[in-house]
């Protein structure tokens, strides 16, 4: 009886609160990550040599630094130069920049897989470079990159659990509080793990539906 009461009053509401914070972290980070990925990926393929170098430098840094270290820099480091971010903003910033670095490599690979003939045809029709990217290569690259980008989004869902390290208390953070209050580590984190599994399953299903919707003859994903 006591257990049940503990569950209802404390655990459920804490987990719901944490779940909501997690989703609020994941959704914008995934969107910004994709946008950054497309921009950096496109610059890495279509930029001049200086721009290409900047793009690959971006990837090198944001893929190379441990994510926790990046979060610490945004949250604890920036105040030294007078910039104070809330834990939530620092987390979204860190996740977006890191996710963007990974996404950009999927997008870059997809841009490179498009035969140069199509870019020549677009140029021969008078397309400017930016219009060529927007209307000819990006729609194709996005389709080709989607399985990889989806993979990165699934991964992002799980590394969002690092946000509590900079005091943005999301699902894992709430779990840690519950666990250390109650000393029920195993039960708590089993439940937390199951909730992440649920989120990734829903995300995988949504991504699969998106892939299916964007499927065109010649762009089939063989499953």
């Amino acid at each position, binding site marked *: 009886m006591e257990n049940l009461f503990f569950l209802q009053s404390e655990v459920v509401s804490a987990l719901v609160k944490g779940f909501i914070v997690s989703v609020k972290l994941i959704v914008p980070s995934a969107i910004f990550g994709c946008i950054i990925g497309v921009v950096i990926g496109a610059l890495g393929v279509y930029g001049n040599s200086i721009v290409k170098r900047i793009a690959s430098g971006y990837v090198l840094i944001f893929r190379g630094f441990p994510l926790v270290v990046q979060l610490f820099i945004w949250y604890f480091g920036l105040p030294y130069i007078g910039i104070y971010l809330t834990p939530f903003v620092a987390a979204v910033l860190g996740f977006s920049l890191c996710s963007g670095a990974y996404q950009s490599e999927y997008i870059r690979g997809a841009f490179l897989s498009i035969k140069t003939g*199509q870019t020549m045809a677009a140029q*021969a*029709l*008078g397309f*400017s470079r930016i219009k060529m990217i927007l209307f000819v290569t990006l729609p*194709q690259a996005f*389709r080709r990159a989607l399985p990889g980008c989806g993979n990165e989004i699934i991964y992002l869902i799980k590394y969002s659990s690092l946000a509590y390290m900079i005091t943005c208390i999301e699902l894992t953070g709430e779990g840690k509080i519950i666990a250390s209050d109650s000393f029920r580590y195993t039960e708590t984190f089993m439940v937390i793990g199951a909730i992440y599994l649920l989120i990734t399953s829903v995300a995988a299903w949504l991504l699969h539906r998106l892939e299916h919707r964007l499927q065109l*003859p*010649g762009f089939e994903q063989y499953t």
Partner: protein
Amino acid sequence: MVDTLPILRIENMTKWYGDNEVLKDASLTINKGELKVLIGPSGGGKSTFLQCINFLVKPDRGRIWLDGKEIIRARKKEINDYRQKVGMIFQDFNLFDHLTALHNVRIALVRVKGMNKGEAQERAIRELDRVGLKSYMNQYPAELSGGQKQRVSIARALAMDPEIMLLDEPTSALDPELISEVLDVIRDVRSGGMTMIMSTHQIGFASEMADEFVFLEDGSIVETGPPEKILYKAQYARTREFCSKITELYGNSFS
């Protein structure tokens, strides 16, 4: 049909790839309504020459005038405007894979010419009808045969109302039984008075249609003249050798 106004003038086009000079001082003038055919061995510079003409390959040297106006290569906007007037047909079609036949033809009208979608759609359907593919307009490139893809690419180029068309071996990537449907379309466009520069090995078809043959070898224009002269009474031994081989292979008359 042919008046003497030079529509396109190319002077001293030169292109190096590393130490290899793939195009050597190639010059060509073409009048309105003319068809000039580039012949010569593969690797002789035909493709490079055509691609230099609309700057898909950046020539190291050379000047181009369209309608008497020199094209300044440094001005991107000017290049893009110029390219709209120079239609290009590629050996391997280069349709946009994510768009239907109709949208392949329509996209540049909307995105480059800024036409409204309805008007562009009508124009695209008309061009597809002209190449006999109106009923295929909702098919994607992956669902079309090589010959159909090439006809779509011709429709795509024609929709831009080009002043001149460049055709880079338009039938070389096709199965033999699909070649004639593409040649028929080219013949039809030609009889509409379109100015064209075409590279091809279809020597019979070319000699029936061309005003002039241009023989290119090792990046140089070796010899220029009417088809019958180049094919049978060429000045240079190398031209004669090439022409006798190619007529043997492809026949000297298409029909």
